[in-house]
């Protein structure tokens, strides 16, 4: 599944955001028409831009367009895309997916060893903010859940809060899930500003990788990050914000994992959800694989103890990015099919597995780096 494609831009002076349509009789605002031949009688005022696989001769004067695009197979009617001066067509929102995410920024104040989307040190915030504001106005009102991710979204500062206010106003029924390292909320004013929005559909997913500051700071490659995050979580709790803790499982986080579970219960008992997540083989991870890799089979004991302790104390627990065949059966109840549809794959041998439909499978980029213990369930064993 592709989320971007590229053609040649014409008459585009700034990023434009619009909904895909293939229906020439459509009259919606902010529509981008995909067509092979531009009909002679087309009312070009109905469309904000035209996307085509054909060459330049078909273009309408002054009408923004991207031409010579290889194909549009990945785009459905109603999907929302941004088209850019350089001809890039980026999918921002897919109507047929439950895993839509707003990219807040690629800037980040951490530099996690296993970051799946390594940060960039350039200020993309004003440009992305403007795109996201347009995007939010176009998202269907019945959208069930929307993520906000980065980078570190809180680096947007006031624009972060304005994005949330805009979401609350325009998509009041949508659950919003923000991925943040929480460090900024160590500053009381940030937590207070967030609380002012009074946003009950907002959940903050915050990573805590160890109960011991030095291990956490090393994993996220930032000094004082642990203490800032824990203080941030307490400030958020003071204002009754909804919090999820996210723990990525790898060689650095596993040794103190059960201690981390106790730490969460003792020091962060207000959290609503704790998610334990398998390692993604993308971003920085391949580069740091020596420091990170442990076969999931070799940590099931630590994981099981952590999960069952927290769950026993009434905290909602999930395991993400794991395969049923690697885990003991008592942990299956915690496994979620969490991998976004377009990233989700299975191994060839999985095709014979009787539990395929219940299993979360793998990230596409983990097809070459996965547990040695993946083995299909067959009728004989079951």
């Amino acid at each position, binding site marked *: 599944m592709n989320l971007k494609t590229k053609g040649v831009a014409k008459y585009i002076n700034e990023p434009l955001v619009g909904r895909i349509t293939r229906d020439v009789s459509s009259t919606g605002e902010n529509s981008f028409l995909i067509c092979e031949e531009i009909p002679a009688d087309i009312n070009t005022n109905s469309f904000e831009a035209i996307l085509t696989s054909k060459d330049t001769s078909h273009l309408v004067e002054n009408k923004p367009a991207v031409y010579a695009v290889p194909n549009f197979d990945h785009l459905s009617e109603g999907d929302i895309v941004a088209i850019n001066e350089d001809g890039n067509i980026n999918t921002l929102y897919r109507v047929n997916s439950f895993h839509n995410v707003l990219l807040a920024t690629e*800037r*980040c*104040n951490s530099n996690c060893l296993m970051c799946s989307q390594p*940060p960039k*040190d*350039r*200020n993309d915030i004003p440009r992305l903010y403007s795109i996201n504001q347009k995007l939010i106005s176009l998202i269907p009102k019945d959208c069930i859940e929307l993520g906000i991710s980065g980078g*570190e979204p*809180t*680096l947007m*500062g006031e624009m972060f809060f304005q994005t949330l206010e805009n979401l609350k106003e325009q998509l009041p029924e949508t659950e919003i899930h923000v991925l943040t390292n929480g*460090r*900024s909320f*160590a*500053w*009381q*004013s*940030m937590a207070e500003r967030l609380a002012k929005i009074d946003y009950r559909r907002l959940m903050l997913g915050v990573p805590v990788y160890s109960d011991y500051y030095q291990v956490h700071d090393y994993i996220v490659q930032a*000094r*004082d990050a642990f*203490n*800032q995050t824990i*203080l941030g979580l307490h400030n958020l709790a*003071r204002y009754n914000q909804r919090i999820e803790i996210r723990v990525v499982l790898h060689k650095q986080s596993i040794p103190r994992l059960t201690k981390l579970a106790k730490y969460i219960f003792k020091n962060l008992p207000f959290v609503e959800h704790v998610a334990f997540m398998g390692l993604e083989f993308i971003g920085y991870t391949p580069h740091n694989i020596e420091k990170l890799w442990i076969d999931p089979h070799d940590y099931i004991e630590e994981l099981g103890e952590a999960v069952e302790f927290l769950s026993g104390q009434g905290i909602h627990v999930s395991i993400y990015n794991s395969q049923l065949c690697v885990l003991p059966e008592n942990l299956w109840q915690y496994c979620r099919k969490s991998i976004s549809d377009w990233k989700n794959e299975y191994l060839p041998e999985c095709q014979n597995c009787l539990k395929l439909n219940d299993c979360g499978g793998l990230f596409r980029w983990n097809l070459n780096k996965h547990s040695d213990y993946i083995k299909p369930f067959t009728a004989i064993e079951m």
Partner: protein
Amino acid sequence: MAHINCIKDGEIIVFANTLLFSKDALFKCLYWYGDKFHTSVSFADVDNYCVKIKPLSTAAINSEDLELYQQKLERDLIDFQLRDVVTKETQNIRDLIIAKAFSNGEFDEDPPGDVSDPVGFNPSL
């Protein structure tokens, strides 16, 4: 002169160097012997406390038990000295924790360290 801990005439006698043991630790330790023993503390010389405990007649402690009680007293003195060190070293921080606990966040510390990315971010703005 060297002081040797001993049992003499049914009384346990233990010495404690004044540089190594605080008076507070001694008394907190002896508190726990008061139900079964007469207790006393005095100076053996300028550098040493002399701690004496003698079973109460009502306590039914026989002479074999005395050696165990001597060992227990020696061990307890060391434990209470440790407790005394912790108590004294942490008194201020303990007061601070309790003061903060019963305040309303108005005495919160500033967050530690820097939170900016390389581009630049200031959360207090």
